[in-house]
């Protein structure tokens, strides 16, 4: 597997401000990667560096095998799609004209634009001016230009902000399709829980540094967060249930007919086996630590160490 992206010791300073510090990441082809972090964590700067829009202060960057600020890198941008945060288009042109303009720049035929607009649900507005578009429609136009011409690499900066849930779903479907075609994609997002099911790798950034990177499961066990189990029990049987599970859960609390347990990840199966033998337990819900929690846990650890 050749690396689609390889960053080694990359740093970017704007005057005294270090936007990105010593970032080293390697991403394989066909992976979907979530880049998560606060505003100002350096996500957008990292995108700009990988696109060759700014030069790194230190370190080396290879994107699709080329340094993005060289003419070779410029050529390889034919195969890169980018959706910037808060995408803006010229208001005077129609959606179709806008897309055709970008198609020309990507050396693609203008005839594929109409179908692509249809695909992102803008078919009815293709001939209307972008100035009349809603925020969600502009975002969809932005997505259309990013996936123009079958890119091998996609950079999506906060792609789902301002989209309603239905459109968001459609958006993830499209990303899933591209993933099946072997497209490498990097998404940054605030809405972490949405991303969980759709990513292979997570890169957590904080104040310009990579705090943690890896597969979600690996990060989950690294963070050592508890699995939470919620039980519904027949009224009056709290004591029995708690007795049956004694020693397995690291903490428990009960209110009304529900019991909340927290346990280490490795004890989860044992508890489930035990639960199935207790007839007074009516229902069970298990919550793995979410991406949000993992993210918070790493940031917390970082702040404590600092």
């Amino acid at each position, binding site marked *: 597997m050749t690396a689609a992206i390889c960053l080694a010791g990359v740093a970017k300073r704007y005057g005294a401000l270090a936007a990105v510090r010593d970032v080293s990441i390697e991403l394989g082809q066909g992976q979907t990667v979530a880049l998560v972090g606060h505003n100002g964590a350096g996500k957008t700067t990292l995108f700009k560096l990988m696109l060759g829009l700014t030069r790194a202060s230190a370190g080396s960057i290879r994107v699709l095998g080329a340094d993005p600020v060289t003419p070779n890198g410029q050529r390889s941008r034919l195969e890169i799609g980018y959706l910037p945060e808060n995408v803006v288009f010229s208001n*005077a042109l129609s959606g179709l004209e806008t897309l055709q303009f970008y198609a020309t720049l990507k050396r693609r035929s203008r005839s594929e634009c109409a179908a692509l607009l249809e695909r992102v649900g803008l078919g009815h507005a293709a001939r209307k001016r972008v100035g009349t578009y809603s925020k969600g429609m502009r975002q969809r136009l932005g997505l259309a230009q990013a996936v123009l011409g079958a890119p091998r690499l996609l950079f999506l900066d906060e792609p789902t902000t301002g989209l309603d849930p239905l459109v968001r779903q459609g958006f993830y479907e499209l990303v899933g399709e591209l993933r099946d075609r072997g497209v490498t994609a990097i998404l940054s997002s605030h809405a972490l829980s949405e991303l969980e099911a759709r990513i292979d790798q997570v890169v957590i950034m904080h104040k310009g540094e990579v705090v943690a990177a890896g597969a979600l499961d690996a990060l989950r066990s690294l963070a050592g967060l508890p699995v939470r189990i919620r039980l519904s029990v027949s009224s009056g049987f709290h004591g029995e249930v708690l007795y049956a599970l004694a020693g397995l859960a690291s903490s428990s609390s009960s209110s009304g007919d529900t019991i909340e347990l927290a346990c280490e990840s490795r004890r989860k199966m044992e508890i489930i086996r035990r639960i199935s033998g207790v007839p007074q337990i009516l229902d069970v819900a298990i919550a793995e630590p979410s991406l949000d929690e993992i993210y918070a846990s790493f940031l917390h650890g970082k702040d404590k160490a600092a």
Partner: protein
Amino acid sequence: MSNILAIAGKEIREGIRNRWILATTLLLAALALTLTFLGSAPTGTVGASQLAVTIASLSSLTIMLLPLIALLLAYDAICGEIDRGTLLLLLSYPVARWQLIAGKYLGHVAILAFATCMGYGVSAGALAAIHGDISGWQSFAAMLASSVLLGSAFLALGYLVSASVADRGAAGGLAIGIWLLFVLIYDMALLGLLVVDQGRTVTAPVLNLLLLFNPADAYRVLNLTGLADVAQFTGMAGVTQDAALAPAALVAALVLWTAVPLAGAAMILKRRQI
């Protein structure tokens, strides 16, 4: 090349949509028609060609107006796109930064050329229709071409400003400053210098050189003295004898005033962090 043409085409299309082209053409046509008919009223018996008179008055109009229009088109072209965030997306495409400047320049020159030729052409056409006299049309065509060249020099200056400064407000202020400097202040300062100097150090060759350092003056000299018929009428005939500036040198100056700022803008944009 296709990148440059695509960007130029987009500029032209936007110019049509936001009615820039229409407004400029109408403005130039209205002013040109007014000047032509007011200006030609008293010349019925002088014997100067109607067209020559028109060239004299239109080139004076051009010196004031075309630089302003060009700067208004150009000052926003780069820093405005950075401000709005549209440049970020555009440069993530396989487009070199000099191609961006070249494309915008090409599109804006086309807009200026269209507006000038249509606006001024209307008045020339009206004259020809009324008097049936089209002698001197070559001079008129030369005036049109040099007007577009003057506009293109100020377009290039506008991009230079737009690529250098951080925000649109500063670019707008600087563009107005450039207009004031080249169109109004430079000549006044030159005049003051001549009066004070009394011809001791500022001799004719020095003055000629100084005129080349202002695109508006190069244009003025080209149109008011370069063309014999017109020179007669504008009272510049005497000046023409002293002025050793061949039209070729003046045109070369205007071309340089376009090429150098354009190259400067491309170089500055190349280093700029988006």
